[in-house]
């Protein structure tokens, strides 16, 4: 059974490209969200294995969303992504409960697969 993914980003261009990329590598993209509110709702309804979460959203930022998704230690694996570099955010990524950070330019199914195989 393919790993399910929820893509959260306010740029439709990126969502489309990411979906194409991940699906081409065997992931099952089960949903997309533009805002934090939509993201939280979709995550609850769709129960994806992975949430690919952009930092910059119109309402809340990605870290806040990550915290809420992973609040009980349950929930999906959150992968934060951004067109900025990881160093721009410092410790915010690890504190938010997200599993990892992947710069948008380096996004690939391969990269996510490696992450999932790495022990927490």
């Amino acid at each position, binding site marked *: 059974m393919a790993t399910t993914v929820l893509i959260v980003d306010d740029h439709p261009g*990126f969502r489309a*490209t990411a979906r*194409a*990329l991940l699906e081409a*590598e065997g992931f099952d993209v089960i949903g997309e969200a533009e805002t934090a509110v939509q993201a939280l709702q979709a995550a609850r309804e769709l129960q994806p294995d992975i949430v690919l979460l952009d930092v910059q959203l119109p309402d809340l930022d990605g870290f806040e969303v990550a915290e809420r998704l992973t609040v009980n230690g349950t929930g999906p694996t959150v992968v934060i992504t951004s*067109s900025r570099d990881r160093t721009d955010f410092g410790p915010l990524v690890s504190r938010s409960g997200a599993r990892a950070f992947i710069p948008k*330019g380096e*996004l*690939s199914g391969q990269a996510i697969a490696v992450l999932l195989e790495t022990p927490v």
Partner: protein
Amino acid sequence: MAGVAFSAIALWLVFSSNHDTHPAFGAALNLVVAWSFIASGLVAWTRRPDNRFGVLMTAVGLTWFIGALSESNDSIPYTVGIVLGLVGFAIFVHALLAFPRGYLETRIVYLTVGTAYAIVTVGQVVAALFYDPTPDCRNCPANALQVVDHNGVTTALNAVLSGLGVLVVGATVFVLVRRWRAASTPLRRALAPVLATGAVTMFLLALLLVLELAHPGAANVVSWVTLFAFASVPLAFLAGLVRSRLAREAVGRLVVALGRARAPGEVRDALADALGDPSLEVAYWLPEQREFFDLHGRRLPLPANDGARWATIVEWDGKRVAAILHDHSLLEDPALVEAAGAAAGLALESERRVAALAESEWRNRALLDAIPDLMFRLSRAGEYLEFKGRAEDVAASPETLIGRTIFDTLPADVASLLAGCIERTLESKELQRVEYDLTLDGRRRSFEGRAVVSGPDEVLLIVRDFTERRRQEAELEALHAELRDRLEELGASRQRIVEAGDVERRRLERNLHDGAQQRLVAVSLTLRLAEGKVATDPGVARQLLGTATEELAIALEELRELARGIHPGVLSERGLEPALGTLVARAPLPVEVDVPLDGRLPGPVEAAAYYVISEALTNIAKYAEASAASVRVSRRNGAAVVEVADDGIGGADPNRGTGLRGLADRVEALDGRLEVQSVPGQGTRVRAVIPCGS
């Protein structure tokens, strides 16, 4: 002793003489003459051992006995007697001319005395060479000096000698009269007896000399008279001494007078009276000033004690109290001055305090006179008691001020202020200040008064005009306020510049992030997707590559646009006019550009001008609804003048929105200024003047 011996010899000679006509009478008279001179000479000598007058008088007496030798019956003593018998007269002339100081002074006096001595010595010896006494005097012995018997020569020589004698006598009388006339009152009193009898004697001597040539018979009588007058001179001198002794009694009267002296200055009057010197002055010693002062508190320097005025210091209780400034002649009897001073010591000591007080008052007065401020003495009721200052500084004319009150002369509010100050001063007995304004000659002036108690129920008010100071203070305050405003404005402007910078950076970051960066991310992902499709689905891969190329082109264009927004490259490379060209080309309306500049403006000025124009054109495009605009950049008086005008709707508010405010800050940071004229319906005109600096 010499005198007694000489007297005995003289008496023996006279009484043993076989050629004297009046032996007893002549002897007695000569003795009287000689002894009166010897006695008074000795008295003078004892009193003033350093004064040669006493010696000279004694010498006159002693040499008088030489004349008695002519009564001798032997040739040698007889010759000495007739030759040197007149030496006493010469010494007498010397003594008279040396009176009272004991020494000779001027050239005429020296000449006169010298001639007198020459006549009675050299002259007489020469005359004796030709003189044969026997024809006149049968019993006389022979003249031991006689060389030739030639009475004609003798007569001629006698005439010459007598003539010279008259000259000597005349000169002596002349000197004595002159000395008398030059003498001060006390000196005259001291000189009078001796000068008078001396002058009379001299006159008679001259008469005698003339008569001896003309009427020898008459001369005989005159010679007796002359002798009497001659003898009276030493008596006159003694009389003068007695008078001075009487003056000592005046000291006794002085003590009594001093006991009565009350008013300042009476001590001086009593001293002047007692010492007989109306010109007498008293100088009081003030130890703090280490100088002498008079009763009015003025400095009174002492004379150098070598001229007509003399100072005698008075001490009381071992301390210097005063100095008596008196005529030199009082030194005839210095003990008298000292006795008078000693008697007056206590009285002078108390008057010294008056002098000290006067001096201190005088100094205080001088101090007040030196102060440029106004000075009033005011009574408790506000009455003017005294005023000092310039007429233009007071509300009423100074002549009418005294006797009036502050309520008569000053506005009610000022008068009540001053009255309060007077009251406070009198109550607290401490310095009080008061400030008030007065309009004098149409000018508003500010005064500050300081009041101190200056007597029972009166204050001294010293008033200073500080209009000018107040004006300067106001000016300074205005300057400070302006500076504060400027600093505040500068602070605000700085903050705005910093904020504008932050906003600008945020905008750039946002633009980069949302624009070029997103597109490049997309390109990157598209390429990765295409890479996966190259083998399996080359058609899709080619399609993806085409999308990526388009995205890249758009990203590049966005980056160029962004860079232009940060700083137009053409501006820094080519200057203002070409940069304006690209600006105008992108503008959505026709813009007329006029840049009459020779050469480029300084970098910061050029950039400021560019942004002013850029912002203004953007505003025109956004809000002005204009059909055309114009841009002009020129140089005037060392400043760049930038003008952007349009024919739009106007009504722009430079204080609203950050665009124009930011431009103004940019221009003001270069010491320039930005003006916006925007009347509704008349278009908008933005004008910036930016100094080009040095």
